[in-house]
């Protein structure tokens, strides 16, 4: 009897054609907002964003997360999101949920303004939203303009996990599949897995490499083994969930190359050997896992003509696939990333 059951289970179809079609269509490539707009991403891609701290890396992650948790449309207003879950693995342990909340509110207000055409008064409420003191005022004011229910449902699609060391990261990854399944039972699928930032435990892992007990071929907790297992676990996750992985990587060595990107462009044209503009420290198993590479550096201050306050400007370069264009962007006071020429 049991064998019969097993055989029937085996023969039974995994999914119907309709389910498959919706899955395949759902897996289509999508474009993120600038500054990540140059290359379309699809499930299975692993994007690595490198830059020294601070170069707005977490900012870019949060912006991408918002694009993922927003619905496509809601009550007739177009938001252009993917309506999927985001899983944010915080290894730096300094994620600030206020920033996510502020940026999400700003996006909701902006979409409403464009959708309904008469939300000119929102400008000021989003302008003061950073001030704690004025927050209550802006909250009561903005209640009228964005949908609280939509806001809550978006925030609930953002899933967060923090890890204080590599062992916590490993045990989280090992049990993540079950926990994702529990979350997905509520409706949405996980779309993006974010890691901020991947090299966080580099030094402590390197130290444990030197402490390795080298007896009876026992696998040690060395840096290469740990990263290999991380990659392996992530590959397993990506086999069952259609995910895009976006990881940031803080440079841990001082930059020795000229900070001026023009110099660098010249030198990279001369020798095609493709030296990365930073010192690579991740083991080869991770480097082989990454499919897209982005490098960000600070490119001086951008002085706005109106105010005397200067904003930090950054330049972003695609290393893989290699693109010739360099995008420059600034982070303005409503925590938005604005491209400029």
């Amino acid at each position, binding site marked *: 009897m049991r064998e019969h059951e097993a055989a029937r289970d085996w023969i039974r179809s995994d999914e119907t054609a309709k389910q498959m079609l919706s899955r395949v269509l759902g897996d289509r490539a999508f474009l993120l907002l600038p500054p990540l707009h140059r290359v379309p991403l699809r499930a299975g891609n692993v994007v690595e964003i490198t830059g020294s701290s601070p170069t707005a890396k977490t900012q870019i992650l949060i912006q991408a997360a918002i694009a993922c948790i927003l619905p496509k449309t809601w009550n007739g207003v177009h938001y252009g999101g993917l309506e999927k879950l985001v899983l944010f693995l915080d290894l730096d342990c300094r994620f600030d*949920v206020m920033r996510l909340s502020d940026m999400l509110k700003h996006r909701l207000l902006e979409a409403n303004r464009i959708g309904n055409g008469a939300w000119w008064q929102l400008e000021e409420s989003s302008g003061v939203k950073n001030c704690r003191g004025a927050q209550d005022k802006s909250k009561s004011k903005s209640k009228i303009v964005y949908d609280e229910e939509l806001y809550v449902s978006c925030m609930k*699609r953002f899933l967060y996990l923090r890890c204080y060391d590599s062992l916590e990261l490993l045990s989280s990854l090992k049990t993540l599949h079950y926990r994702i399944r529990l979350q997905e039972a509520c409706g949405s699928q996980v779309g993006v897995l974010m890691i901020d930032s991947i090299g966080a435990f580099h*030094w402590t892992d390197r130290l444990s490499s030197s402490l390795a007990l080298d007896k009876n071929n026992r696998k040690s907790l060395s840096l290469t083994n740990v990263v290999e297992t991380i990659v392996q676990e992530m590959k397993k996750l990506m086999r069952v969930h259609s995910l895009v992985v976006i990881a940031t990587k803080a440079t841990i060595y001082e930059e020795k190359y000229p900070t001026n990107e023009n110099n660098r462009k010249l030198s990279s044209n001369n020798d095609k050997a493709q030296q990365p503009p930073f010192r690579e420290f991740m083991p080869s198993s991770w480097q082989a896992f990454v499919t897209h590479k982005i490098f960000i550096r600070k490119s001086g201050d951008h002085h706005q003509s109106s105010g005397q306050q200067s904003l930090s400007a950054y330049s972003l370069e695609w290393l893989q696939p290699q693109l010739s264009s360099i995008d420059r962007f600034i982070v303005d006071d409503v925590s938005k990333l604005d491209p400029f020429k």
Partner: protein
Amino acid sequence: MAPLKHLEMENPIIDASFRDFCSSHGILTVEDFLIHDLYELAAFAERQVDADRLKEGITVMLSLLEVKCRPLLNGMELLEDLQRNKHTLSSGDNGTDSLLQGGLREGQVTELVGPSSSGKTQFCMQAAASVAEKQEGSVFYIDTGNSFSARRIAQFICGSSAAAALQKRVLSRISCHTVYDIYTMFDTLQGLEVALRSQEQMNVNECRLRLLIVDSISSLITPILGGSGSQGRALMVALGYLLKKLAHEHNIAVLVTNHTVGAGENGKTKPALGETWKSIPHVRLMLSRDNRNNICTISILKHTSMLSGQTVTRKDNQQCL
């Protein structure tokens, strides 16, 4: 985490034969378990006589790991934790508080960077006085350079004319600990963590610890850095994470100070401790002082939710020292 046999008491499935099977694959501890491919291990278990029992053991191990993991929180739960448990503490200086939109935030590590005699220690002592007086929280002050002065802190309490009883009460909330090397530092912090955990278990909420100050953290870390070895940097990162963990898990604001070093070529100074340390603090503040007119400038180098580059200046009252 521990050798597997310590788990047998509560989980009889992890018995001698399961452990034998594991050790034949080089798995002796729970950590070993983490760096192995469990699917592969289950496939090996399949070939054994007692396959079902072994696979059950692997499942039990996985569920033990899951219990140890931190819960997956969604955005609303994070927001709730922030609003309920992570308050801002006044640093005692109005300019700085408005620059930081309220002051030092519980759960975060704030770093003060500045050259020698730019007012870092003064800032720390003022913050200690302010938190002990206005927020009625206790302060854990780690002094690494013998620069702590109870008399100076007393001056910060509502000016210097405060009633003796108030002064006494406020000062009793501040405990000073002298630490001269990083190993003692780990001891002190781990002791603190244990104490806090037992306090939380017994629900002692009276005058809870709200501010942890380390003045200065760079004098503990600098001596172990240098050279090409990774040991110094590993200790630095471990200390940083211990501080972040204390801050977040026990809702404490952590304030550390760092000195500056000359960058060489262009004569500019920059924070000490280098590139790796940059990813530790949530907030980095740069202090600088113009000695001619006693004007002190504080600027944001890095903030998790604010733009960097904003500054505030203040006239200093150093003369009362």
